[in-house]
């Protein structure tokens, strides 16, 4: 219309010198640098390319230049597009913050009939009256839950063994359902149980009220029972039977399991994964021990250096990848979380690894006695006589006093990886997060000291390992994508819709 002839390519080039956009970088071995921008897009450059890039000398026609430009590591015109896209992607990545506290943990009883040496919460065996949540405490805690602006609320029952106070679970579920309908919040319930007390009545109730079940499975019998002693030495048998019964009654996807890695576990990665597969699971979450509760006292027998955990994790992941290659769809869930952050533009809230930390703003814990804590770990510390992270009590403190608490503001302000020493210039910043309570519990300070932090070491090594694997092998790329999409590999190749 405006023109009757075609212009040449040069007409459309800006011809401006380029400027850098914010990014982090690190040495990535083999003469390469990893660069990651604030929205988690990454590139691997040769050292020479990197040098040329940062000294504003990169050839504007080469593919590396174009890659850096279209992933928004640099800009070369007056167009606002790079900034618009970056801000949209940044907002998207942080969308998990919207809605405020979504996970609400109810410690309905501190009692437990197991006596696990790695127990993070220092369970007790007696005194029902003292260590069970009262009806009034439960009701008042629900008042706070429904003050949360989150449109979707997850209520998790923990302990001790929560089924020991099943009456309270019923009360909370039913009261929450009534209030949920009135407030138009959608609700999800999860009970975290060792399943030893499971019976038909409980199963029927869980089914009627659509309560999900999360249990512990540490590995085959010898390992599980060693980790999780109880009278009769049959924790494994009861857990496996419980898993089967929940599946049959509630459905395949209604039960999940968590494993805790002890010193004994370190020697048995294959056996642990095989145990998960033989019990019908398609995933495992390889979790290190939490340094709280009894775990601190028994660290000498159950604990290990974080390097040993990382080694264990890599061996287990290798084995899992081998299984996937051979056609068994099986996911390591922590890897999925990190890979989703690395490979997709989507937000991933995970209260134990986000920035700012999830304490209080992503999760709140209502203890059996009505005390409110910022995280599960906070109440674990409290059971160790350190009530540093007690936000208040359902008896006497208002929602504003608890969730507007100065301490909580301090935690949020001190847990942004963008400004934390050692994190602020880390290339993995966009994939990582902070855990102030963990820092405090292990290092005595909520900001923490990165060079000696096990939390840092674990996440740094795992992220680096996943990135290295992803860029080493196209089959691994396919497997990782299948985990991110939660679709077996076959569905991501031949099984596409016709």
């Amino acid at each position, binding site marked *: 219309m405006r023109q009757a002839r075609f212009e040449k390519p040069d007409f459309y080039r800006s011809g401006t010198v380029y400027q850098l956009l914010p990014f982090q970088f690190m040495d990535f071995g083999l003469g390469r640098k990893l660069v990651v921008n604030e929205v988690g897009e990454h590139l691997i450059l040769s050292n020479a390319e990197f040098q040329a890039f940062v000294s504003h000398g990169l050839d504007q026609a080469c593919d590396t230049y174009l890659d850096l430009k279209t992933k928004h590591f640099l800009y070369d015109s007056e167009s606002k597009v790079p900034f618009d896209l970056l801000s949209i992607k940044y907002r998207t990545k942080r969308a998990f913050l919207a809605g405020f506290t979504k996970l609400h943990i109810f410690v309905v009883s501190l009692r437990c009939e197991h006596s696990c040496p790695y127990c993070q919460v220092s369970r007790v065996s007696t005194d029902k009256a003292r260590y069970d949540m009262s009806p009034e405490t439960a009701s008042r805690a629900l008042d706070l839950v429904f003050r949360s602006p989150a449109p979707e609320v997850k209520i998790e029952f923990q302990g001790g063994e929560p089924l020991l106070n099943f009456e309270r679970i019923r009360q909370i579920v039913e009261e929450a359902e009534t209030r949920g309908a009135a407030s138009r919040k959608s609700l999800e319930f999860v009970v975290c149980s060792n399943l030893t007390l499971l019976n038909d009545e409980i199963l029927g109730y869980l089914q009627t009220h659509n309560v999900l079940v999360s249990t512990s499975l540490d590995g085959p019998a010898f390992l599980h029972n060693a980790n999780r002693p109880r009278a009769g030495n049959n924790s494994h048998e009861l857990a496996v039977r419980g898993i089967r019964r929940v599946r049959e009654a509630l459905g395949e996807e209604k039960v999940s399991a968590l494993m805790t890695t002890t010193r004994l576990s370190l020697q048995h990665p294959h056996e642990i994964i095989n145990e998960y597969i033989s019990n019908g699971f398609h995933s495992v979450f390889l979790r290190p021990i939490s340094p709280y509760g009894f775990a601190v006292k028994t660290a000498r027998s159950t604990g290990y250096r974080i390097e040993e955990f990382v080694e264990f994790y890599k061996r287990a992941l290798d084995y899992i990848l081998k299984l996937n290659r051979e056609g068994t769809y099986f996911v390591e869930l922590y890897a999925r979380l990190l890979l989703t952050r690395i490979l997709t*533009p989507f937000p991933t809230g995970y209260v134990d690894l986000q920035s700012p930390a999830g304490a209080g703003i992503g999760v709140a814990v209502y203890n059996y006695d009505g005390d409110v804590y910022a995280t599960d770990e906070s109440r674990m510390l409290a059971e160790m006589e350190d009530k540093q992270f007690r936000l208040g009590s359902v008896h006497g403190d208002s929602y504003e006093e608890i969730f507007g608490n100065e301490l909580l503001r301090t935690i949020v302000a001190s847990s942004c990886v963008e400004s934390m020493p050692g994190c602020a210039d880390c290339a993995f910043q966009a994939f990582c997060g902070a855990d102030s309570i963990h820092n405090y519990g292990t290092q005595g300070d909520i900001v923490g000291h990165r060079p000696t932090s096990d939390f840092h070491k674990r996440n740094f090594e795992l992220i680096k390992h996943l990135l290295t694997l992803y860029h080493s092998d196209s089959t691994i790329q*396919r497997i990782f994508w299948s985990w991110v999409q939660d679709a077996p590999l076959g569905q991501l190749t031949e099984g596409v819709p016709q």
Partner: protein
Amino acid sequence: MKLYSLGTTAAVPKAIIGRITTAGIAPGQAREDHILFLKEAPPPADTDGYAAVLTTQGGAPWADHVPVVHSLTGVDYLADGDVVRIDPNGYVRTLYRRQSPNNFILTTDQCNSYCLMCSQPPKRVNDFYRLAEHIRLVDLMDPETKELVITGGEPTLLKDGFLRLIQHCKEKLPGTALHVLTNGRLFYYRRFAEALGAIGHPDLMLGIPVYSDVDSAHDYVVQAKGAFEQTVTGLHNLARHDVAVEIRVVLHALTYRRLPQTAEFIARNFPFAAQVALMGMEMVGFVHKNMAELWIDPHDYQKELAEATWFLFRSGLNVKIYNHQLCVLDRLLWPFACRSISDWKNIYLDTCDPCLARDRCGGFFESAAKKHSDYIKPLLDLKAPHNAGVAVA
């Protein structure tokens, strides 16, 4: 496929649009919307009130009180429910075919881009007045119509007229899926995107091209400086206002090389896209002027196409491959291939006759008869792998 005929008019002082009926309509049943089509049938006693009468017979002295086109030849394609426009010069053009899945409204011949491979080069004409005709056409369409394409030129140049047309479709064709082919540039203006979203059409999708992850490369292909900025911003404005978008990439020598990076750019920046279409080039219009710069045998970009397709698919996007023949497409990509070419310009070559995949294959644009891949061949054994070495799945 021929969709126009020439006859001799009588009493047609201006263009007439109407719906074809062969059986006739009882008086009082909106005859004024209908055009009576008499093939070999003798003239009915009563032609009063029809918008016009069409006949293959030479002359129609019995119909001196209604507009007539007589002596029509080659009109076998006309069927009940079709909508045609009669011009005073005797042309009868089909605007809508009730039995076809490929109906479209060509809103305007004007465009604010000037794409190197445009299949329908824009014209410098003032044709916005045709909006009334488009609205009338929508009135006459069968509400059972499954899909309608709104195209151009650039339909959004009608601005308020474009919004009116979409609103009108929503009212008159509530069950018809609308697919708008636009460059999306005007949605750079947020209020325009907001106004389109506010119409709340139940089944609307905008097909918007993004030719490269690199702004200057896109701007060059569409021959418009700043188009990339407008389209990218437009896509986000549409997403903000809940308008579904399809991202379209036409593959040619200027776009194939960075196709994998373009795919990643799309997955990262437009994860909300309802679908992504990777499209073979139609060999008409401006393509001929720019052939030397645009042509690449599709066989030679299979690696990039496969890489991009798998990346988009793994990223969870609904990816489709349009306008590609199965014999040049990697076997693993077949499930993504759609029979996307509109029936009226869809052909197969003689070479294709013995091919066992012919029924699944989208075939060619009519225009590909003269220029197509050198690797077209009938597939005689569907079990045999082919294009080996290309797959990156």
